């Protein structure tokens, strides 16, 4: 009985801790939503409230009037979708090789993938800029997509390698025994099992590109090409000054796609990262 009570208390404590953690995580977003609907006078209140006393859509109106948010969102969407599709298309065969053919070379490649994640943006941007310039891809969405693909490729590769390892090699061997060729095996046996991983990886690459700011800031020169994160900074002044209401409204809208996508894929991302961790 005592042990039962102890377990119950421990479980309650765990739930309380989880709830506190969720509240902690949700706080910035909830505050952002609250701020987006507050009139200017409430933004400067000494006693801010969670729920705006006099909610308004003025911040949204102002944000849309002052900045081309729809056009920027369209650019972001285009870049993010293209980057996600290309990253998955490129990463999939590479991941297959890394997962199925263990050698010193693949081990070194995997190590390089991990190391490359540690490079700071500022280290890469100038050489990258020069390369893109020679390719005449500065100030173009295809150039930006290329950068996003390169940038998201290591993590996409890492995720997909886990998914491939989770597909039992015995299934491919069985298909081969049944007379299926390599291509047929990959298409009919491996690919369907990899589908959830491909979707999760693509969505991860999408979110990475959707939220990226610095590359877009540096590479895109004309207003017509700018993406949403770049346009959001137009609500910011020097030394941290900000047009808080419209900024919050625009940031709230910009956050929605990421939230929706994360809501859809969070299980699969976890599954992908853990796939292959335990040998069956």
């Amino acid at each position, binding site marked *: 009985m005592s042990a039962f009570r102890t377990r119950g208390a421990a479980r309650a404590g765990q739930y309380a801790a989880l709830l506190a953690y969720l509240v902690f995580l949700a706080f910035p977003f909830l505050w952002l939503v609250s701020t987006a609907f507050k009139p200017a006078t409430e*933004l400067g209140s000494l006693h801010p409230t969670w729920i705006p006393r006099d909610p308004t859509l003025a911040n949204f109106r102002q944000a849309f009037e002052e900045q081309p948010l729809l056009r920027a969102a369209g650019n972001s969407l285009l870049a993010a979708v293209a980057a996600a599709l290309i990253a998955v298309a490129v990463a999939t065969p590479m991941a297959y090789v890394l997962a199925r053919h263990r050698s010193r070379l693949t081990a070194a490649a995997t190590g390089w993938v991990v190391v490359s994640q540690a490079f700071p943006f500022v280290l*890469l941007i100038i050489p990258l800029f*020069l*390369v893109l310039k020679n390719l005449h891809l500065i100030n173009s969405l295809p150039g930006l997509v290329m950068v996003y693909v390169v940038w998201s490729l290591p993590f996409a590769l890492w995720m997909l390698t886990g998914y491939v390892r989770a597909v039992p090699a015995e299934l491919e061997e069985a298909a081969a025994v049944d007379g299926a060729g390599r291509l047929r095996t990959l298409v009919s046996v491996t690919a369907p099992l990899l589908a959830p991983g491909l979707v999760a990886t693509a969505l991860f690459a999408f979110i990475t590109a959707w939220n990226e700011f*610095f590359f877009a800031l*540096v590479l895109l020169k*004309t*207003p017509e090409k700018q993406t949403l994160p770049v346009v959001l900074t137009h609500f910011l002044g020097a*030394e941290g000054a900000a047009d808080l209401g419209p900024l919050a409204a625009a940031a709230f809208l910009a956050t929605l796609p990421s939230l929706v996508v994360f809501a859809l894929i969070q299980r699969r991302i976890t599954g992908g990262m853990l796939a292959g961790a335990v040998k069956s």
Partner: protein
Amino acid sequence: MRRVRRLAQARRFGRARRFATAVAAAALLLTGSACTADQRPDDGSGVVRLRFQSLAWQQESVDANKQLVAEWNAAHPDIQVDYVQGSWDSVHDQLLTSFEGGEAPDLVHDASDDLADFAYGGYLADLRPLLSVRLRADIPAESWRTTTFGDGVYGVPFLQEPRMIMANRKLLADAGVRVPTAEQPWSWEEFRSVAKDLTKMMGGGRYAVAWPLKEPVSVSLNLGLSAGGRLFHRGADDKVTLRFEDADAVVPGTIRAMVGTDRTASPATLGSGGSDTLPGFFGGRYAMVPLGFSYRQQIVQQAPEGFDWTVLPAPAGAGGLAQGVSPQTLSIAADSPHKKEAAAFLEFFLQPRNTVRLALGDWMLPTSTTALADPALHTPEFGWATGAAVAQALRPAPAQSVRGYPEWKDKVATPAFQEYYSGAIGTEELRRRLVTDGNRVLARYQRD
């Protein structure tokens, strides 16, 4: 030139950034075909196209910039300016990348304290042969000093903002204190005394002053000029050394005493930015907040109806109302193939009547003497007149052209001032850190 460039870069970048530049240079050599702006393809129409990257962000300011560009374009069909909205966020890295890649905008908007690297790095054109006598003469020499590096002038300083005291007029009246003017400002001692009266009158949990000291170095140094502080001393050999003398201690000492001894300044705002203090100001928790002049726009936008506020000059000392500023600047890229046309646009853009429009849009003060005399900038409404009166006393921020200043600021001065204001260290320790540790940092940058 290469050595000068390396020194300049060392001022602002960490190892990663220096390495990035080296990698960039290597990539430049390897690719071998990274053309300069002079090789930009022409569209064949004979029309010169200039790219103007503006950092204007407040809507009124953006509108003013765009209108001026449109007016220029309408009057000059052969020289068209493309307005590009830039961003204060990461502007230094963005410009550096653009300069290195030969894709910089022809016209660059920035702040004077960010120009040194670009000027010493050879990325900006020397404007001396390009600007008219009128424009040169219309801006005071003190302002030109903020954009003069070595023998060249690398930007036109056009807007600036002093730090003023935003005050709750009703609380000041209730306390019966003397309200200062630009002609008869408070001394630092009087400011401290007034703060005591105000705090006593306001009651528990409220403070006369909220010092937003998230950036303690610029506040301490810039306002320190009013007390005769200099801190940075340039010798005959052109090398700069740090000395913390009695005059340098006046402003930091006053702030510390207000927070720790008098309890007339809120300790809670020591780590805050300017905007963070506004709710407390509106709510009557603080009677006065020293803020940049442009913060008036946020006050106008966010203050509750009926909130009665005024703009006061910062206290004066042995140096009068002097304080340091880093003006906003307009420069021309060294790589621009159309420097003369770009300079012509600058001449138009910075005509006094246009500068007034820009100043009103940004809630800042023009450096142009003629523009500053415009009646629109002398109305008592929103403190314009007080700000304009203070403008004559503005000086270049003390250290913005000192090599090694950014590292000194980040690694030595910021933590030292933060600890000093919070009461963790005393004046002697502050002096030791600023001077002894600081001179070690500066020496590394001045070895040639």
